[in-house]
């Protein structure tokens, strides 16, 4: 049930993001969602793609420091309060969210949130118990 997210170390220099996304594009890797955390010197670019294994390989080949991380995706019909409910469920179980980012499906009906939490297994179990839709990796990869 885990989505394979790619994390890439990037120096804060002009053109780096264009270079990374360019490498992915040339290799036919399609990006689903992007998030970047940065300071003045460096950042971590996190992406969800259609083919994580391929993305990992081509970036590694291009000498980037890369890692694959298991994350969870949850999906909502786009309505106010949906995300707050899901986060409350996690909070009630003392599961902390390290970071998250969101994107919307092509048709615009579903909002997806990528979550990196302290315990993936517990999070999935409790979210499902409380009827939050945990999205299968294939749904994201094959969008």
């Amino acid at each position, binding site marked *: 049930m885990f989505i394979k997210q790619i*994390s*890439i*170390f*990037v*120096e804060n220099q002009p053109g780096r993001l264009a270079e990374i996304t360019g490498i992915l594009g040339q290799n036919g890797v399609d990006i689903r969602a992007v998030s970047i*955390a940065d*300071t003045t*010197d*460096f950042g*971590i670019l996190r992406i969800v793609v259609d083919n994580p294994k391929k993305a990992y390989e081509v970036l590694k080949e291009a*000498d*980037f*420091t*890369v*890692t694959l*991380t298991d994350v969870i995706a949850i999906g909502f019909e786009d309505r106010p309060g949906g995300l707050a409910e899901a986060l409350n469920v996690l909070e009630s179980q003392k599961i902390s969210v*390290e*970071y998250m980012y969101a994107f919307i499906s092509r048709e615009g009906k579903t909002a997806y949130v990528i979550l990196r939490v302290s315990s993936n297994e517990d999070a999935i179990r409790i979210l499902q118990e409380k009827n939050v839709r945990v999205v299968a990796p294939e749904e994201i990869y094959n969008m």
Partner: protein
Amino acid sequence: METMSRKQTEELQLEHLKQVVSHCYNNVPFYHQRLDEAGVTPEKIKTLSDVQYIPFTTKEDIRDNYPYGLFAVPMKKIVRIHASSGTTGKPTVVGYTRKDLDTWSELIARLVTAAGCTEEDVAQICFGYGLFTGALGLHYGLEKIGAAVVPISSGNTKKQLMVMKDFGTTTIISTPSYALYMGEQARELGYKKEDFKLRIGLFGSEGSSVEMRSQIEELWGLLATDNYGLSEVMGPGVSGDCHLREGMHIAEDHFLTELIDPKTGTVLPVGETGELVITTLTKEGIPLLRYRTKDITRFNTEPCGCGRTSMRMDKIKGRTDDMLKIRGVNVFPTQIESVLMNIEKIGPHYELIVRRDGYMDTLEVKVEVIDGSLLERYRELERLQADIRENLKSVLGIICKVTLAEPKSITRYEGKAKRIVDLRNQ
């Protein structure tokens, strides 16, 4: 020679010292004038410590007499000429007589034997052949002991690795930074440790820390030894590690070594750290009196476990030129290297950038992030940065800016690494 008593060594040195001072005085106008001015004519040399009355010779003196002004024999006696790289002006030119070359080969033979090489070894010389003394110096000494020499020269790492594997190279001769780089490349190209038969590394031409040495050993599974020399006094062969690696044995029958305070020129007692000064005792082509090497080291006269009685010198701690003065604190790049080599998750390459920010000197230490596991959490990267900063602070006493860079973003060198960028005078 290598097991002589202290007294025998000193008697031999004194005899040679008298000869070399006469040789310089009688055959090199520059020295004739210098020694006259200082009032130290050859007959005034009665004891070894009288050497301290002789004025120093510097690299500038050799340059001022470019190209052959300091040669002490007629050109017909010179059989080889080498020169330093001359990155900062005219090169320093040195000439060897037949006897000088024999001595050189003999000293290298000693050095490589002390490191453990035998006639069974296949020795790949990855130093650039040419005017530089490193390659040819090692070449003839290794041939002398009967090793099979592979004179591949520097560069073309892929070919180096192919030859290393296919020829069954057992001994590698290079700078420590190139050995590290080749090891990295070997891994990347899919070679395994078992593909190679390397057992001994003879590293020289630049300094390295004990930590860097361990890293090279781990990469290659070899015994890494250091040797020291400089083209002005001969080239490699002045001193080198025995297999115990507790200081480099100095070839005292050919070189008289002193340590001085680089600022005052005062001779320092054994045990203190200072600039190495060398007088060549037997050289014919271009004998040098009290040559200032600008290399910082320390002597050790304790007997070595290997049985050799010669005085030993520590790994070069730095160069008087390389010593960075940052906010009044003396910083040697090797100190920084020692800290960095002990930190996991970063690569072995680094760059030091010194700037002047208003009236403040700042030191930036740039390292490469190589371990993907750091990317799980942002604070792991921040923690790494803080760890490096703290470790450097405890060793150097100053706070540095630590920059995390992408893999391969720091320039690699096939010869001597240039790791310092000083922007203060720009």
